[in-house]
């Protein structure tokens, strides 16, 4: 039997109602933030989830933790269906899964000292109480590279990078099996970003924690992830091991994304040209009859406008949802 996955997301939809369309019409308008997402995450790996703003990656991360309720589909966590759990059961599960947000200013209570921010989750989940809390917090802060003097300080006394370390310490407090990192390092300067990336990788090596690493930054995702899923308008269009997805992308959207990223390198030949991609993201309110990428795709054919491609195997473990992924096999 294949290795049991820790997370199994099956056919997940998250639609948001945004009121009715105009006067006298009855059809409710919906934003299809996540639209048929299927994803498996293995224990101890980092799954990168990458895409542009509005592609649904953050909503997907939140729905996996049941921080928003899915419209359809289910999320299995270590064999248990999260949507079937009541409040008590869900609370028990929350001990095993955590999230670190993008903005450490907004996600840390400005009126609480760091020892209380980190200690709170220990107490809430019954992992420590009374005098036992402080030494646990001190150990956690040390793990993320902050000194114990940080305990008595408030969030505003820290820099952005240090604050993000506090957020990571809080997530680690419950010794989770799974952490969703939602653009957790995007707001940091590159030199600080590098420190946090190294910290996250060290923690994973030491504890075996599983990450879902959500980011718009293709370079950071490559560095962090064992496997990567590329999202476009609510669905995964390509997924595979990092090396093969970056070395030979098989979906035209992934290819375009990669060719849009400016690389910090200049040759004697002069400035590189960024090939990029035409047009902009279509509205997530539209219902897609054919391929969701067809209006921007350089390879578009009639079939793409008629029938949606399925996420098919291109090489073992590597999937792409494109009618013409074969053509990209050699073109890379």
């Amino acid at each position, binding site marked *: 039997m294949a290795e049991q996955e820790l997370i199994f997301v099956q056919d997940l939809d998250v639609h948001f109602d945004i009121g009715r369309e105009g006067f006298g019409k009855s059809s409710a308008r919906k934003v299809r933030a996540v639209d048929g997402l299927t994803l498996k995450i293995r224990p101890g790996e980092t799954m990168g989830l990458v895409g542009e703003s509005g592609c649904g990656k953050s909503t997907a991360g939140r729905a996996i933790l049941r921080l928003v309720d899915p419209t359809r589909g289910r999320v299995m966590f270590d064999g248990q269906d999260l949507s079937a759990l009541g409040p008590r059961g869900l609370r028990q599960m929350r001990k095993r899964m955590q999230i670190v947000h993008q903005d450490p200013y907004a996600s840390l209570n400005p009126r609480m000292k760091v020892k209380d921010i980190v200690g709170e989750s220990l107490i809430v989940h019954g992992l420590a109480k009374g005098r036992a809390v402080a030494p646990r917090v001190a150990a956690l802060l040390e793990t993320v590279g902050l000194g114990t003097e940080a305990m008595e300080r408030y969030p505003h006394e820290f820099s952005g990078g240090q604050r993000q370390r506090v957020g990571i310490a809080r997530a680690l407090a419950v010794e989770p099996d799974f952490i969703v990192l939602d653009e957790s390092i995007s707001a940091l300067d590159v030199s600080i970003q590098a*420190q946090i990336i190294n910290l996250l990788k060290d923690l994973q090596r030491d504890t075996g924690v599983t990450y879902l690493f959500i980011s718009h930054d293709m370079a950071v995702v490559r560095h962090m992830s064992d496997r990567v899923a590329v999202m476009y308008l609510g669905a995964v269009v390509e997924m595979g091991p990092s090396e093969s997805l*970056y070395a030979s992308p098989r979906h035209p959207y992934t290819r375009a994304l990669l060719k849009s990223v400016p690389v910090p390198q200049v040759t004697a030949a002069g400035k590189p040209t960024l090939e990029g991609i035409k047009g902009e993201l279509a509205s997530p309110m539209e219902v897609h009859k054919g391929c969701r990428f067809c209006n921007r795709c350089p390879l578009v054919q009639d079939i793409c406008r008629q029938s949606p491609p399925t996420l098919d195997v291109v090489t073992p473990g590597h999937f792409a949802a494109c009618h013409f992924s074969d053509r990209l096999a050699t073109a890379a």
Partner: protein
Amino acid sequence: MTGPLLSLRDLNVSFGQGRSAVHAVRNLSFDVARGEIVAIVGESGSGKSNAVLGLLDLVRAPGRRSVGQLVFDGEDLTGYGPRQMRRIRGRRIAMIFQDPMTALNPLLSVGRQMVDLGRQHLGLSRKAAWARGIEVLETVGITAAEARMKAYPHQLSGGIRQRVMIAMALICEPELLIADEPTTALDVTIQAQIIELVKDLQARLGLSIIWITHDLGVVAALADRVIVMYSGTQIEEGPAEALFNRTGHPYTEALLASMPRVDQAPDGALRTLPQGQREAPDGCLFRARCSYAEPQCAADRPALDSLAPGHRAACFRPDRQRQGAPSHG
């Protein structure tokens, strides 16, 4: 006319008084040649944004700005007051910002804002200003320009809004365009479109550009010459090719090595800057975080010395043996 389009010497911007004063920009000096794209790169707090605010005399009180010499197109602007600077800004030196929503008026249509600019700066009639607005929208690759003129800023996507900003900056045919992180808030595919547009405008219109960014990837795609800032100081300057391939300053080297690369498989941990005092009180500013620091670095402050024609770095050991330098290209 020969000589650089812009020549700046000893720009200082500071906030606060006496011992608690913060020196956001210290003795910044550089030239911009005609048709050249100069990138100013640095992390947050490096003074890169204050550098251009100081250049344009837009530093707000209680901040203070002083400039040794500022020459633009042969005209000495050094002693110019606010009125005289206003005649230069917008018209001959235009600026675009990171967030077009704060720079565009949300209550007025794009066309109305274009017309206002054309009438005020160029003294055009309403009709002529409208035509000029359409012309510049087409210059920046906006289709259906007539319809876009009638739209309000919130009706446009982020990428189109940034194009509109650039179009507005072009109305007066400026010689110099200053852009402060204009693509940072955009998605990478849209950023690529804007970068290629700017390169194209530079080539077609012969614009000179100062582009402020924290992203060395964007620098590589765009810049002819690069200025690296650290803690208000210019620590390295040079042609892009030299700066990326024969890096002079250890800070520039560390920045490059700490960036994950989209085009290379990861090779162990990223190099990080040692945590340490950001700004040493004496000697080299960077020495507390520098892995090459030696006694001389604490004794004297290194000057911006020439390494090769046009390439300068403020380091005593620009010829050092590189530590674990990544094998770029």
